[in-house]
Every structure is written in structure tokens, then in C-alpha cells.
């Protein structure tokens, strides 16, 4: 089976469209709910028959779910690794479920339902990982959609639930609400003013945590941080979300303040640096992924500061996803070596920027 991403509503990347609030700073918002089906071992200990039963039960429940109307099911266990990587690069499946780690190949029964801004990973670390993804800063809305889907599926599939411990998960760090609420936020101002460490330490003191662009275990690249709740037990979903909203608002204010300081105290140095980033992306003939990410971070800041106009945040968001290896191979229609990918990336970025040639503001 070869993947056809046109089957997905908006290719599964409507969360990139920069339509949400504060979208120049907050890329996207995600709610993840971990659930398990009662009566079976958790995925890592489940036998193949159990994983396939879980998949069958979720499929049956999904068929009657209004939230998943029009959603498409991808059986990861039937896809080539290149296609699984493609879904991972779009933030639609985790690395673990996609079986991208050589030591943990894809397991029978691994699948994902993808609908418009909603998804369900099946047989990940937990039997179900419900995901709701929104553009910009929209925690309450994202939670509403995830909760509606959760009610629909939980009304058909019996979840593992304990009156004292709440929703039971394979890892006790997710037990209780099973909820991880996160925002993907761009903080170049705080990084450049060297305020970032203080902000990150503050987050941890408030029971929050941060990760890189691709979640757990991923590095921070291009000044993108995923901020999320750390605890899942002893607080309600609403309390956890309210706290995150409150803290992220403060972080946004701090970032805006840092940007003002930069412009005031180092105006021409910053301006020069950001235009050089734009120039490199506009004309380079070879770009590594890291380089592309770092220069894109600069250009995104320049757009936020209105130094560059006529370039949409949506275009920049798309470049983040589409300049990754599996996407470049997909566009080129063949597997690329590292240097071929670097050249294809530079070409792709050049074309995208040329078609929207930014102008000096």
C-alpha cells in the first residue's frame, strides 16, 4: 500500500494554516488523551491477537463517531517506512507508533485514524491516543473537540478506568486524566536576549515541562518549544488547561517584551541578521535541515517584527514540515541521499519564497 495524503482533509495539516490566535508566536495547540481498552494487556505486553481486537473494536466505534465522519484509517503495519515517516513529519503519528526506531519496528495492529484536526493513534504505548490539533493558541477549543470524540468512543469501547486513579495508562506518568495539553511556541526573542533559561526554569517550577518540535526526546531546533502539563493526576482537565493558558499568556507577553527590547537596543544588528537569514534561504543552493530551521526562525521573527512584509506565516509553517527528508523525497518521487536532500530543500525553499517574494517594510 502506498500512501495517498490527498485522502486526508487538508492533507492533515490544517493546523499549519496560521488562522488561530497569536499565530505569529504560537504555531499550534494540541490535546492528547491516553485511553486503554479494558480486558486487554497494554500494547507493549499485548499479544498480536489482542492488538488486532483493539483495532477492530476502535474501528467499529469510529464508524458511528460524528467527530470522525470523513476520517481515514491508515494501517501503519501495511505502510512502507518512507510513508510512515511522512505521517510522522506531519506530526500526525508518533515516532514510536510509526516504528521508525530500528530497535522497535512497527507492530501488527498499529494504525491511525485521521480526520479534520482530529486523530486517534491505535496501539501506541496506550491502546488509544486521541489527538486534537488546532492552529494557533486555542487550548479550550482543542480540548472540546478531543472531549467530544472521547465521549463518542468511550460510549462504545469500554475504557480501563479506576475510581481512585482515573483513566489507567501503561505509564503511570499519564494516569488520571490521561491528558497532555501542549502548545508549540516560537521564542526567538527570549533566546536572543538570553532570558529563555529563566522562563523554562519557571515553567518547571509550575509543574509544566517543555520539549522540542517533535515531542518527547526531540531536540529544540529553530527556537521552537512545546510547552505542556507534566502532571495528569490530582487536577481536573479544566484546571490543567486553565493553568497552561495562564502560563502561556505570560510567556507570550515575555516574548513580545523581549522583541521590543531587541528592536530598541540592537535595531540595526537584528535587522541585518534577519535579512541575512532571508537572503540565505532565498538564494542558497544547499541547506541542511538544521540550517533551514534556524534561518526560518529568523525570517519568522522578521515577519513578526514587520521588517519583512508580504510573506505569510502559513508559508513559513508549511516550510517547516515540507522541508523535511521524507517530504522532499515524496515531492521528488524518489529516495534522496543527504546531499540530494540538501539541494532539494534549498530549491523548495527558494521556490516557495520567490512565489511570495517578501518586500522591505
Amino acid at each position, binding site marked *: 500500500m502506498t500512501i495517498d495524503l490527498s485522502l486526508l482533509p487538508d492533507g492533515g495539516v490544517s493546523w499549519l494554516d496560521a488562522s488561530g490566535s497569536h499565530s505569529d508566536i504560537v504555531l499550534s495547540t494540541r490535546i492528547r488523551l491516553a485511553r486503554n481498552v479494558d*480486558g486487554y494487556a497494554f500494547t507493549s505486553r499485548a*499479544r498480536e491477537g*489482542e492488538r488486532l481486537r483493539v483495532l477492530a473494536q476502535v474501528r467499529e466505534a469510529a464508524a458511528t463517531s460524528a467527530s470522525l465522519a470523513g476520517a481515514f484509517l491508515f494501517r501503519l503495519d501495511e505502510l512502507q517506512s518512507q510513508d510512515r515517516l511522512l505521517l510522522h513529519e506531519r506530526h500526525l503519528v508518533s515516532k514510536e507508533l510509526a516504528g521508525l526506531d530500528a530497535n522497535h519496528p512497527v507492530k501488527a495492529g498499529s494504525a491511525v485514524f485521521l480526520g479534520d484536526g482530529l486523530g486517534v493513534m491505535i496501539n501506541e504505548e496506550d491502546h488509544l491516543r486521541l489527538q486534537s490539533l488546532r492552529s494557533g493558541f486555542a487550548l479550550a477549543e482543542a480540548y472540546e473537540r478531543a472531549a467530544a470524540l472521547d465521549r463518542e468512543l*468511550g460510549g462504545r469501547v469500554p475504557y*480501563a478506568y479506576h475510581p481512585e486513579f482515573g483513566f489507567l495508562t501503561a505509564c503511570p506518568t499519564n494516569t488520571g*486524566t490521561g491528558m497532555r495539553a501542549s502548545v508549540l511556541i516560537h521564542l526567538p526573542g527570549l533566546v536572543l536576549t538570553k532570558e529563555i533559561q529563566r522562563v523554562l526554569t519557571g515553567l518547571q517550577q509550575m509543574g509544566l515541562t517543555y520539549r522540542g518540535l517533535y515531542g518527547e526526546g526531540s531536540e529544540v531546533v529553530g527556537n521552537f518549544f512545546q510547552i505542556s502539563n507534566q502532571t495528569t493526576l490530582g487536577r481536573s482537565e479544566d484546571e490543567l488547561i486553565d493553568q497552561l493558558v495562564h502560563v502561556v499568556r505570560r510567556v507570550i507577553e515575555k516574548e513580545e517584551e523581549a522583541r521590543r527590547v531587541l528592536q530598541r537596543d540592537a535595531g540595526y544588528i537584528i535587522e541585518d541578521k534577519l535579512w541575512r537569514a532571508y537572503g540565505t534561504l532565498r538564494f542558497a543552493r544547499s541547506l541542511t535541515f538544521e540550517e533551514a530551521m534556524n534561518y526560518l526562525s529568523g525570517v519568522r521573527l522578521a515577519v513578526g517584527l514587520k521588517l519583512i512584509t508580504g510573506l505569510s506565516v502559513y508559508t513559513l509553517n508549511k516550510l517547516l514540515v515540507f522541508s523535511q527528508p521524507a517530504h522532499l523525497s515524496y515531492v521528488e518521487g524518489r529516495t534522496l541521499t543527504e546531499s540530494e536532500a540538501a539541494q532539494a530543500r534549498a530549491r523548495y525553499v527558494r521556490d516557495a519564497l520567490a512565489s511570495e517574494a517578501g518586500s522591505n517594510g
Partner: protein
Amino acid sequence: MICDSCKERDAVVHLTQIVDNAVSQLHLCEKCAAEKGVETSVGLPQHPLGQFLAEVQQQVAVPAAEAGRCTFCGASMKDFRAAGRLGCPRCYTTFEGSLRELLRRVHGHSRHVGRTYDAPAPEHREQDTIRGELRERLRRAIESEQFELAAELRDRIRVLGE
């Protein structure tokens, strides 16, 4: 898992045998199982399971939980410490004391205060789904030598009809 008899096809029938008071497992593919006269539609031998299990039970002494293993999935706290993952929902009851302490350390609390949940009533679920689920649980019960539970599951499957 490969068939113990032909060593070629996947085993789909898992038999528990008792020879000289020792419990052993036999895994067979559909074809070999049929040749040995085993009914494959429910993956179990045809002779009355209740009586068969009653005999076994007297011979299997220590209950799994007391040996520090989950009665459903067979995982121990040692397995959990090695993998960082629990084996199944039942582990939360089996290791309740240790887990309550661990949850308190991780989250600062051990009591859920978020959304509550009631599982759907069985009459609202598809018979086929329930049957499939019970069969999987029966296989696991036999594998983990919980023969009383296996007998009960077998009866429930019988009530639902084949």
C-alpha cells in the same frame, strides 16, 4: 508463534496439557490441530472443559498474585521497574499499594479528580465484539493458568452462542 507440530505455520490453537502433574503448553496451527482432533472454532479441546479445569486447579498451587505477579498479564513489579510500563489495567489493582505511593511522588497526588467515566453497558455492545474480546481473555487466562477464570469465560462464550 510457530506451530509446535509442523514448525511451519503460525500457531492459532494454544492447548494446556497435564502430564504427570506437570502443566505444559502446546501451540498448534489450524491444520495440525484439526489432525489431532482439536476443535478450532474456539481454540479449545472438545472434551468438557469444566471437569478438565477442576482437575487442573487442584494441582496448581500458589495464586499468581501472591507470587508478586499480576493475575491477568503475569507482569511483576520488577518488570515494571525494568520497562517503566505496566502490563495491563489489572496491574493497578494488583500493585495498588506500591503504585499509590509512586503516583503520589510523580504527580503530588494519588486521587483522580478529573472527568469520571462509566463503561458502556454490555447490552449496548455488539455480540461479535464481546465474543472476540472474551476469546482473547480466555486465551490469556489459559496461558497464565487461571483455570477457574477460563472456565467462567468459556461458559460466557457458550451463552453468547458460537
